[in-house]
């Protein structure tokens, strides 16, 4: 009644309230403050009453006091000067004999977020942290976190952090729990501080408090425990043993946090240990029980189970039935359950799963039905024995003629064709009947793919594709690309009657479209077809690799991180905290601890990928010493890098039937790249070891495009991988060196493979043989967002400090960003050091040649070089190797050349070219013969490219 009255007032008569607040009668005062609070709640501005309300603060009536405090918390920020008026009362209340009032004062104090008054609050807070009453202490512990949020420096200066640490040893479990919560939060904003100094002693204290504190306290403690890394498997086991009883707690959050600790620490247990098996068995029942909680919690639990099932499928493999969808589950629960059902589907339970999915496909919610249909297709791909039944189920569904069901079914049938070639093509006729009802790009693209792929079995394939062509420009890119590929396939299969069609589509794609992807693909097909139709056939109609069984898997490193965040929002969103938390909090990436028996690889596929050899990391000592300007956080010794998964390679196969069928053989033939990771493969899956051949292959591929090739000029080697993403915490750097108009350029491609934005790039070189140093700062102006690449060109000079390196052209580089400092070393081609003024007078050349002792002459052969002497001379000149004289003796061309290094060293060369022979002989003479070897390499590189 009270409330209604307050809330229906049209305007607050501030004046009237003011009078009431200043009334002598306690009751009247209290009612007035209540009115003020009510107005505040609905958003009315009652800040004008600040002095009057604060005047009511000095009372021994606890209820009135609480109301005034509530008002203060709301308005202090907007009236900082007046907030100081309240300070005295707080200080006084913190010494009140009643612990409830002391606690109330210290609690409210922290909520007054006014910088000016914080320092007045330090003394009372200090007293309260050491209060005799645990209720006051537990409130004061949280207050430290509040104060830290307002003024971190103050909290550190006042030594409150140490007091807070002491509270971890408090006799009262709730004080311990709140201290842990406060410390965890503060530690999050200081990623590198050792604030939460977790050692076996503190862990023991936490585990003891765990048994005694409230359910919320247990959550704080478990979440904190999850950040600890046990020293060995025995410690890990003993912690697990003390955490498992929490799995029977009625509070789901306690259970999930306990699961998080167990999932994490389990990584360290040897798998042959009996206890390991026991623990696995213990995890299943509580996870199932979470599904009988309220729907919102079920949703949180299901999102987490989705992660757990991916990491450790064995835990829930027998529990399929509990994920069956109930008629009245909320839609968000239904969709999640369906996801998990597919993950758990296996030969053993497939019959039940299919029966369920068939039921779901007749429900009302469109999203749910679509997902169910898709799930049937995924079952077919996952469990071979069920494929036939799945296909017939899908056909039944197509017969329903429900538009979205049909479309969804066609999309999955395309994948089934890929998985089981030459088995189910008999259903094509049925599919073709539904051509007209397809209105979604994905379904249209799938259907076109099918028609193109099986053109020889479909009599009117040309008519069907032609019908799509009519509205070519209105289609989405996905459909356009597929249509292009489909028609090219058709042409290669039935060339006679479809010539017109293919010309039409090629011209549509190349001339009338402004989409670069489409245009490029069109040109590639065009050239292929016009150059060599037989090769085109081999390329376009090449056998397709099988598609993988599992889809939608979370990338393993992300999965590991998310496992460390079980129960939290990150695990609900399936995104790392940095993706949705602002500022510094939560940017640290968490990792699972390494297991006792080296790194375990969850997917067998990943084992096949060779690990990068660590050879490029130079001896750390002198490197670290030299790279001064960078803020030197020593490279954290992370556990062995998680193996890259081979699965993503599989994922690209699903992208588009046509594209990869084109790219695959090309990559294989030209680049000698066995993985066939052409355009589409996510580069994160590229093992660093193959970067060199792959880029070679790609260059060739581009050359083929129009014979454009590299502009003649200074030779620039292709980019090589310098820093793989695995070593760079997601930062991948590949690069090369070039000399452009007299300036040495370090050209790099920086790629962000991490989930967070990268900023603050800087670069530094170690001393090197020729004093190479950056001529300016590394210019990365915009932050590098995830999956973005940026090309950077860094001009270099040769004014840096000099130290002889081995090999001579070795360069050690440190790159810094907001995440860490990374070190790598690379070798620059000597040719970038060849200066423009390297042409010697011919007389001087002769004298010098004679002058240099013969001991300094080195000779070397360059094989497989199909150039004549003039071409070779031109090529070399582009890289500042100047031909001074040429003579021909018995069919052998002799070129005399000179070049000058940036540090003034002259190198003289004699190049013998036998006409018709691919072998060149180079003799070098130099006063500093050490450089010869590197110069040879450059010769070889320039001439061969």
């Amino acid at each position, binding site marked *: 009644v009270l*409330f209604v009255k307050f809330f229906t007032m049209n305007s607050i008569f501030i004046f009237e309230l003011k009078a009431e607040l200043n009334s002598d009668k306690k009751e009247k005062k209290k009612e007035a403050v209540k009115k003020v*609070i*009510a107005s505040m*709640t609905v*958003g*009315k501005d009652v800040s004008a009453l600040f002095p009057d309300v604060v005047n009511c603060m000095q009372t021994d009536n606890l209820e009135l006091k*609480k*109301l005034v*405090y509530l008002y203060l918390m*709301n308005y202090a920020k907007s009236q900082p000067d007046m907030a100081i008026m309240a300070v005295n009362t707080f200080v006084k209340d913190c010494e009140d*004999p*009643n612990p*409830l009032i002391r606690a109330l004062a210290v609690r409210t104090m*922290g909520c007054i*977020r006014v910088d000016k008054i914080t320092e007045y609050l330090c003394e009372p807070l200090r007293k309260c942290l050491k209060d005799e009453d645990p*209720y*006051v202490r*537990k409130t004061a512990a*949280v*207050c430290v976190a509040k104060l830290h*949020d307002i003024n971190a420096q103050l909290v550190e200066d006042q030594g409150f952090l140490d007091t807070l640490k002491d509270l971890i040893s408090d006799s*009262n479990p*709730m004080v311990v729990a709140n201290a842990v*919560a406060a410390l965890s*939060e503060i530690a999050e904003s200081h990623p590198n501080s050792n604030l939460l100094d977790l050692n076996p002693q503190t862990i023991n204290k936490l585990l003891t408090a765990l048994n005694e504190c*409230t359910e*919320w306290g247990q959550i704080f403690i478990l979440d904190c425990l999850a950040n600890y890394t046990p020293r060995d498997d025995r410690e890990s086991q003993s912690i697990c043993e003390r955490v498992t*009883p929490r799995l*029977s*707690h*009625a509070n*789901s*959050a306690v*259970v999930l*946090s306990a699961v998080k600790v167990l999932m994490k620490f389990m990584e360290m247990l040897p798998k042959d240990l009996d206890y390991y098996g026991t623990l696995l068995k213990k995890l299943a*029942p*509580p996870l*199932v*029980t979470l599904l*009988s909680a309220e*729907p*919102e*919690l079920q*949703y*949180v*639990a299901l999102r987490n189970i989705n992660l757990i099932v991916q990491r450790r499928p064995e835990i829930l493999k027998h529990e399929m*039935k*509990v994920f069956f969808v109930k008629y*009245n589950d*909320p839609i968000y629960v239904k969709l999640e359950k369906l996801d998990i059902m597919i993950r758990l589907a296996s030969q053993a339970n497939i019959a039940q799963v299919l029966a369920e999915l068939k039921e779901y496909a*007749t429900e009302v919610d469109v999203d749910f039905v679509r997902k169910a249909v898709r799930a049937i297709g995924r079952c077919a791909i996952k469990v071979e024995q069920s494929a036939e039944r799945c296909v017939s189920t899908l056909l039944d569904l197509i017969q329903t*003629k*429900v538009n979205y069901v049909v479309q969804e079914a066609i999309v999955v049938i395309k994948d089934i064709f890929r998985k089981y070639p030459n088995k189910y093509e008999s259903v094509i006729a049925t599919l073709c009947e539904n051509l007209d009802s397809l209105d979604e790009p994905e379904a249209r693209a799938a259907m076109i793919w099918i028609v193109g792929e099986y053109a020889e079995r479909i009599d009117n394939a040309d008519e069907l594709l032609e019908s799509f062509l009519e509205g070519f420009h209105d289609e989405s890119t996905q459909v356009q690309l597929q249509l292009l590929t489909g028609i090219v396939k058709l042409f290669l299969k039935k060339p006679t009657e479809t010539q017109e069609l293919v010309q039409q589509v090629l011209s549509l794609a190349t001339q009338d479209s402004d989409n670069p992807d489409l245009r490029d693909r069109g040109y590639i097909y065009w050239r292929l077809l016009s150059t060599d139709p037989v090769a085109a056939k081999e390329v376009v109609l090449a056998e397709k690799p099988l598609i993988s069984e599992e889809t939608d898997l979370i990338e393993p490193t992300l999965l590991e991180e998310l496992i460390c*965040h079980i129960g*939290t929002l990150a695990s609900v969103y399936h995104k790392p*905290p940095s993706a949705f*938390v*602002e500022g510094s*909090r*939560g940017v640290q990436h968490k990792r699972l601890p390494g297991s006792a028996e080296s790194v375990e690889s969850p997917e067998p596929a990943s084992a096949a990928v060779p690990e990068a050899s660590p050879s490029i990391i130079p001896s750390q000592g002198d490197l670290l010493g030299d790279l001064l300007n960078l803020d030197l956080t020593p490279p954290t010794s992370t556990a062995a890098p998680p193996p890259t998964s081979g699965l993503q390679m599989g994922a690209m196969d699903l992208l588009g039937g046509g594209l990869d069928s084109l790219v695959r053989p090309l990559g294989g033939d030209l680049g000698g790249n066995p993985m066939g990771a052409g355009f589409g493969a996510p580069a994160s899956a590229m093992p660093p070891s193959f970067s060199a051949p792959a880029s070679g292959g790609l260059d060739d591929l581009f050359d083929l495009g129009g014979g454009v090739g590299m502009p003649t000029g200074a030779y620039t080697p292709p980019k090589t991988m310098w820093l793989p993403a695995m070593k760079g915490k997601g930062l991948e750097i590949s690069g090369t060196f070039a000399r452009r108009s007299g300036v040495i350029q370090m050209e790099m491609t920086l790629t962000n493979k991490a989930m967070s934005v990268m900023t603050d790039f800087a670069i530094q070189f170690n001393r090197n043989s020729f004093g190479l140093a950056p001529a300016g700062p590394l210019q990365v102006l915009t932050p590098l967002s995830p999956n973005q690449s940026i090309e950077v060109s860094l001009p270099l000079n040769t004014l840096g400090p000099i130290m002889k390196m081995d090999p001579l052209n070795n360069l050690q580089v440190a790159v810094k960003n907001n995440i860490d400092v990374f070190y790598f070393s690379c070798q620059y081609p000597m040719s970038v050091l060849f200066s423009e003024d390297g042409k010697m007078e011919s007389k001087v050349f002769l004298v010098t040649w004679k002058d240099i002792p013969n001991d300094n002459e080195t000779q070397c052969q360059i094989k497989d070089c199909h150039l004549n002497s003039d071409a070779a001379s031109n090529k070399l000149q582009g890289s500042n190797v100047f031909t001074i004289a040429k003579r021909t003796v018995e069919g052998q061309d002799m070129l005399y050349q000179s070049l000058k290094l940036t540090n003034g060293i002259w190198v003289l060369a004699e190049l013998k070219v036998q006409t018709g022979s691919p072998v060149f002989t180079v003799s070098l003479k130099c006063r500093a013969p050490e450089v010869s070897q590197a110069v040879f390499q450059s010769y070889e590189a320039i001439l061969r490219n």
Partner: protein
Amino acid sequence: MIGGLFIYNHKGEVLISRVYRDDIGYVAQRSFMVTSCIKPATLFNVNLFVCRRNAVDAFRVNVIHARQQVRSPVTNIARTSFFHVKRSNIWLAAVTKQNVNAAMVFEFLYKMCDVMTAYFGKISEENIKNNFVLIYELLDEILDFGYPQNSETGALKTFITQQGIKGQTKEEQSQITSQVTGQIGWRREGIKYRRNELFLDVLESVNLLMSPQGQVLSAHVSGRVVMKSYLSGMPECKFGMNDKIVIDKQGKGGDLYAFCCSGKQSIAIDDCTFHQCVRLSKFDSERSISFIPPDGEYELMRYRTTKDIILPFRVIPLVREVGRTKLEVKVVIKSNFKPSLLAQKIEVRIPTPLNTSGVQVICMKGKAKYKASENAIVWKIKRMAGMKESQISAEIELLPTNDKKKWARPPISMNFEVPFAPSGLKVRYLKVFESKLNYSDHDVIKWVRYIGRSGIYETRC
């Protein structure tokens, strides 16, 4: 941690708002309410919207006023996460910008509902408006800077009262604080009853999904043991039931009871969870359930079983399509328990196609009615003894349609209540020890009751 907490009515008006952290933005300082419904906007628009207004409005616009069904209980709008639960037509929303423990936030929201219910009954707009001062006081206590604190009503009621605390002595004050922060935060000291009495309710819900041929597709029982205790002092309790693991263990030791009920009489519990008063480490090591109970009513444990479930009813459906405009349905139900027991509140719901034009029903027992609005025939029987059988037959007239889509035939569902536990769970003992006061286990009057209800009890047809 939780940055703020809001309670909205169904129109999206803010009834309670408590902001704990600056990052979520201050509460609207305006009384103006956006009542017009803004359609779910594009992401771009949403962001703009949030920038201009604040968290409170964002939630109203995007969730409460969204035309669609709720697609997720957690919504992220412009990097702010909203957790919400709905009780009747009241929305509770917790807001945060950090990576909080999501399970904890929901548990807290449920707990807050419990606390409010314990204080002023049903959560309704009127009750919230009438108790807003109390709610703020409670929120201040149970959520500090977004960290949940002790939220046991037993403890809270000792110092948060609507009357105000008067004349507390120093002892009383420190007793309150030690209780709120103590190990037994759920019970206060000094409780006295003239009659020591306790009530145990074993409440089970039995769930079934059966194929038309009578094959059990899935069946499970989820049960709760609810206790009402009116005991003096700080009694130590021990609860025993016919848990297979315990019985097997004791059977080896020669326990007579265990011997008697070995085999079929004991039940395999798949999993159980306990109220926070139960010593979990003791359960983990010895599988014994010992605790100091809260005063009054609370839920001691929850459990789940899937093996050897007694299915109280069997439904045998028979649906025949006679031509395109007629369906004949016959459903037989059989009760499958001791003849001396009576099932109550039996209701069988037989779905009918959407194009039903008329229904004729004949049933042997109870009353049956066709409810067009629910697209179902509802057959109600007040009581039915064990080992009996009853049947209903119906003729359903259909309007001819040209809808090609087949009728999905939803399952036949059933509701009932039986006076036994379908899981087979039996309470073996509940011992009470109170060493300081002079009453013993024998002086406590104990009541045990078993109620089995239908959960989702469906038979496909």
